[in-house]
């Protein structure tokens, strides 16, 4: 691999997540030049990723102005974009679409035409989206269809590209002057500290781009007070250079008697700070991803605005504390307890939360996983997540569905019964479709029946229905054939058989879980019987 192009036209946090992929690509292809195409507003963030050969930025504002104002000839839009691309090589060995938006998908089509390989999604000449593989379907369709995802985005992009995620810390550019200045500040705090053991610095980044994701000031006040009371910990407030965050920091400082240590840092300075703190508490996705790249132990505060199953931290043992909203009660106690748990000051059995639910990033043979630690959780949801994850893995990789350990729980039998009903319905629909297919060309009425049968199949797509996974994979194949169903009838028939096989695989998998549960229950009954004896 000589030249790799990665396209990510999303926001700052998403641009940082590409850092994981860049580290992994560099580990596998050390001599490859990685070119990173982003929008201008993310250029500075992208430039922090040290393994990049060059960042190429599209001036989206300028492109939008040129393209939307009637005074400008379209030639200037073309010339401006081509000028931006002029620094890129003519061809690439691999083009990766890491943002599934329209512009990135069109540009992937543009660049991949002259390149050896591509990954993700792109348009074909019929304006239909093409997928580089089933993992691409999982990334673009499966995870976007539902609120939660079976695999996080970092894992998915690695699976799409077909490389293992590097577990190494990503190389980030930092500023030596910032690092030196910070060293001085932290040493001064250490020297003034009364604690006998080593002082741990807790970075707290409580503000984000949206008020509904911010940690409320009242909660922060309590949290800082709790940390101040702990002689082994020292809190540092990290804010972005914005008027909104500055004002909130001033208010917090006032409430805390003007003793607050606050750092106002851009991304370059934040990188230096992250390297020197021991733990980060944050609700902001950009700083979270930056810390994740640095392998800084962190606690993400999630108020349900974004799904942590999609965009949660990848580093092992990172924590995610979930609340229903940022108005939830007893947040500060839960945050403090989770933090202490991570710093090993509280054993698992002594960790009790009020309103929050705590998850931990772990890893198994399927990839990154978010394991429930403590707090409120719908057990059925967790069971469905485990089963869905295994199914998605098996179907996307075209291998047998691996069997996760599912312990018996209330509601599990009901879940399995619902799935069995879904299977019966889908199987019936598949048979109808196969029966109608040969008649399609000749009879219009048959055509209508066929289409209504087809749409009925997709009406039951939901997170609860595990058969949605093979159906969504099939839907993407269908879209590629749909421009001419009559000519593609053979391929269509083949794809229906593939769907049927995948559904059978899922059904077998669910049956094996049911059998295993029966055995578990029998064993439990046996144990109970013996204990009575």
């Amino acid at each position: 691999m000589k030249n790799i192009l990665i396209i990510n036209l999303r926001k700052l946090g998403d641009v940082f997540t590409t850092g994981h992929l860049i580290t992994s690509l560099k580990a596998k292809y050390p001599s490859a030049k990685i070119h990173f195409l982003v929008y201008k507003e993310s250029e500075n963030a992208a430039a922090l990723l040290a393994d990049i050969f060059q960042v190429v930025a599209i001036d989206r504002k300028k492109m939008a102005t040129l393209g939307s104002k009637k005074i400008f000839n379209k030639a200037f839009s073309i010339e401006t974009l081509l000028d931006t691309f002029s620094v890129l090589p003519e061809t690439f060995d691999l083009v990766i679409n890491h943002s599934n938006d329209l512009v990135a998908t069109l540009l992937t089509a543009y660049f991949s035409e002259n390149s050896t390989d591509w990954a993700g999604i792109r348009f074909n000449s019929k304006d239909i989206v093409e997928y580089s593989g089933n993992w691409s379907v999982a990334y673009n369709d499966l995870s976007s269809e539902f609120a939660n995802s079976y695999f996080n985005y970092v894992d998915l992009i690695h699976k799409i590209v077909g490389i293992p995620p590097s577990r190494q810390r990503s190389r980030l550019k930092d500023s030596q002057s910032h690092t030196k200045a910070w060293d001085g500040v932290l040493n001064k705090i250490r020297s003034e500290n009364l604690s006998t053991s080593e002082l741990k610095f807790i970075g707290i980044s409580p503000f984000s781009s949206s008020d509904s994701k911010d940690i409320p000031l009242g909660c922060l006040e309590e949290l800082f007070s709790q940390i101040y009371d702990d002689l082994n910990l020292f809190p540092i407030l990290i804010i972005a250079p914005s008027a909104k965050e500055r004002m909130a920091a001033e208010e917090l400082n006032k409430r805390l008697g003007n003793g607050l240590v606050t750092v106002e840092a851009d991304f370059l300075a934040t990188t230096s700070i992250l390297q020197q703190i021991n733990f980060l508490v944050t609700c902001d996705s950009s700083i979270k991803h930056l810390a994740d790249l640095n392998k800084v132990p962190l606690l993400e505060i999630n108020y349900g605005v974004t799904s942590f199953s999609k965009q949660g931290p990848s580093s092992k043992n990172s924590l995610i504390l979930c609340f229903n909203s940022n108005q939830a009660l007893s947040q500060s106690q839960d945050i403090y307890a989770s933090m202490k748990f991570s710093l090993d000051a509280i054993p698992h059995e002594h960790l009790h939360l009020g309103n929050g639910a705590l998850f931990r990033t772990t890893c198994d043979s399927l990839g990154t996983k978010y394991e429930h630690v403590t707090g409120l959780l719908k057990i059925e949801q967790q069971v469905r997540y485990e089963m869905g994850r295994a199914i998605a893995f098996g179907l996307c990789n075209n291998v047998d569905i691996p069997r996760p350990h599912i312990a018996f729980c209330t509601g599990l039998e009901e879940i399995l019964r619902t799935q069995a009903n879904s299977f019966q319905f889908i199987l019936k629909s598949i048979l109808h479709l196969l029966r109608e297919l040969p008649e399609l060309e000749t009879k219009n009425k048959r055509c209508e029946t066929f289409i209504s049968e087809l749409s009925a199949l997709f009406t039951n797509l939901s997170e609860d229905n595990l058969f949605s996974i093979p159906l969504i994979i099939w839907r993407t194949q269908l879209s590629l054939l749909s421009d001419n169903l009559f000519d593609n009838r053979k391929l269509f028939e083949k794809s229906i058989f593939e769907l049927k096989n995948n559904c059978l695989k899922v059904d077998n998998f669910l049956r094996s879980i049911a059998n295993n549960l029966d055995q578990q229950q029998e064993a439990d009954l046996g144990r109970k019987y013996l204990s009575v004896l």
Partner: protein
Amino acid sequence: MEGAFSILRMRQMLETKRQSSQIEIKISKNGHKVPLLKGIHLHSIYDPIKEAEALIHRFDESIKEKKYFLILGLGFGYHIKALINKLHTMGDSDFKIIVIEPNKSLVDCFQDNFPAIENVTIFQAEQVSEIYAQRKVVDFLCHLPLVLAHPASLNLHDHYFKSFLSFSSDNSVGSVLSHMSKNETYQALQRIENSDFDIANIASSPSKLELGRSYFLLKAIDAMASMCREV
């Protein structure tokens, strides 16, 4: 062709001479040069500097928020100097000004009588479309500059500036090609030059397949423009 070109040049020279003979330079009551064109004084014959300051003062609030300024009408530049003085008093030296003036003789006369002004570029063309064909002007306009009109110039060239402000570009393939450098996309567009459609509707063109990968580039450009329209 050479003969035709010479005649065209001769005509232009004669026109310039005719226009320049129409410009008369008067001296204001307080000793400043004021051009008189077609019987119109382009600045106050009493105090052109005070008049220019008053004009700029009306835009004080808007000026604070901008770094790019488009001035319609050159005159003898008193309003431009007033704007620059205002920007300097605001502590701003990182600004850019473009002046649009249709009268070539006035530009020549101005340049003969005054030294060049910092950060100011004058664009002169008889046809409005010639102004919009210049990449530097286009790049500048993308910064959405504050437009300041010089009232006397506006009166004098009413039709010209109205056309300038309501200009609509011809986006036929031929016109797009005439504004482009010869690159891969240029060659692709040449293949469909004779098809009669607007480039903005490229997706519905039956010739789109002939564009090769440039089709995706054009669609990406259109998608970025749509984002702005949606906003």
